[in-house]
């Protein structure tokens, strides 16, 4: 009896947490459909802010730049990350533990430190700010995520399948492309989606590495927020958060993290 009572209490608690997590996001989204420029209530439905967004060249350019940067980052990080995962899985490399530990700094060191260090370095070698620097930085941040996700999938891979293929006369390249990669494909897809999300949502590193006036969407939003809030920011934020949540839902389907084993 007390058990059932506690279970109900637990569920209520879970509901409160979900409310805490989602209420502000939903409130922000709701305000993007409110006619008042000063977020005044009562609520009057309007799509004006989305229409304005559509006519705002600065935002559209930044959005487009964010998307194509994320695509480039996804391709590069997924290819390099998958290759490294396969090598770490297949070969008995001396110092494997060190290689695995080296993946942590990009995740564990605050992006403020990584971002400013990149800024210094890219200026030091004469590359400076700009989209190429942003891409290089994003790939470095996305790589560990790809490797972690693909490695997790590889750990479910039965090594004897590779041995069976080799016993049938397949060379290492054929084995990789015909046996290994098809098996870990869900992991690769999940890793790619993570990489896209890391790049598309990345603010800190982009903030330090992008050229003023030539920025990505999050950096543009940050600058706009500091000037003052407008429902237009709500509108573009709503689009961004909807998009990134949709991407992660698809990624979760492939990665199956947290599911029953």
């Amino acid at each position: 009896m007390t058990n059932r009572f506690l279970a109900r209490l637990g569920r209520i608690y879970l509901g409160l947490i979900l409310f805490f997590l989602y209420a502000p996001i939903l409130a922000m989204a709701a305000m993007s459909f409110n006619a008042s420029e000063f977020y005044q209530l009562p609520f009057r439905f309007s799509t004006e802010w989305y229409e304005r967004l559509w006519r705002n060249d600065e935002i559209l350019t930044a959005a487009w730049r964010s998307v194509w940067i994320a695509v480039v980052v996804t391709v590069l990080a997924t290819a390099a990350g998958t290759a490294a995962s396969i090598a770490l899985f297949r070969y008995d490399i001396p110092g494997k533990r060190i290689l695995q530990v080296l993946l942590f700094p990009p995740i564990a060191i605050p992006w403020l430190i990584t971002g400013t260090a990149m800024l210094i370095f890219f200026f030091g070698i004469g590359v400076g700010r700009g989209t190429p620097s942003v891409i290089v930085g994003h790939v470095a941040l996305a790589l560990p995520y790809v490797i972690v996700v693909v490695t997790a999938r590889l750990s479910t891979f039965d090594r004897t399948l590779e041995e069976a293929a080799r016993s049938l006369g397949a060379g290492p390249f054929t084995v990789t492309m015909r046996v290994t990669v098809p098996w870990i494909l869900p992991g690769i897809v999940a890793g790619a989606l993570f990489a896209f999300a890391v790049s598309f949502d990345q603010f800190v590193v982009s903030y330090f590495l992008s050229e003023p006036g030539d920025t990505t969407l999050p950096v543009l939003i940050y600058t706009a927020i500091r000037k003052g809030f407008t429902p237009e920011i709500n509108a573009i934020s709503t689009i961004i958060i909807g998009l990134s949540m949709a991407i992660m839902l698809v990624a979760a389907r492939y990665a199956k993290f947290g599911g029953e084993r």
Partner: protein
Amino acid sequence: MSGSLARTDRLRALALLSPAYLWLMAAVFLPLSAMAFFSFLSDVPFGGRDWQFTLDNYRAFLETPTYATLLWKSVKLGLIVTALSVLIGFPCAYVLAKVVRGRSREALFLLVILPFWSNSLVRIFSWAIVLRGNGILGSTVDAILPWDVRLNLMFSPTAIVIGLVHSYLPYVILTSYLALQAIDDSLIEAARSLGARRRTILRRLILPLAAPGIIAGAVLIFVPVVGSFMEPRILGGRRGTYYGTVIEDQFVAVFNWPLGAALSFILLAVVLGILALASPAIRRATL
């Protein structure tokens, strides 16, 4: 195994590994070294500026009490946010791992983790919309309570803490959930059959076994919060000066890069110290 086969294997491994690790080298480890180098310079070594090696930047940190005060302020913020996140998040992870059963568990877990993977800047902005004076929270409280309350949490340390807890709470839920899920239910049943009550089971069994997960989550929250600058800027306004915002200023407003590098490097030392202290727990949690 013959030597030549081992060598071709080694070459293949090298070919597969080098793109990723060279990239990390060029984009993370060399920059961190460059930052260490810069922190000992009197001025930036390009654009025809005069520069020499100096310890002035570190001396500035030691001699100007503001920096140490702000670092302590940031560490305190990190401790508060971490403590709140653990206190709020662990029970949530427990309910998910041990109370909710069947298919709904996976869906609920995904719902809890999902915001964590969405844009953090946008989520902080959403709190600004909620917390601002005459904002949604203010209006709602006003409408419910009969007397006149001027609830304005915006631009206060409270707002910063709320926003940061919202940002990082899923971290500790994720790591605690994974640790709790690894605890076999039969252990809890065994403890009950030996006469242990709920509180004893929690204290002697569940908390010790979930500790690596909790510690890993706490570190993963504490580290970025100490280095946060965007959240205090947006939610703290003029009162939102923290160690992170000072570093940001050195690079985007004051343009004293060597000082910024030194301040960043001191922060990195603090972070690495904490990571080193917690690494046994993190390793156990990720195994």
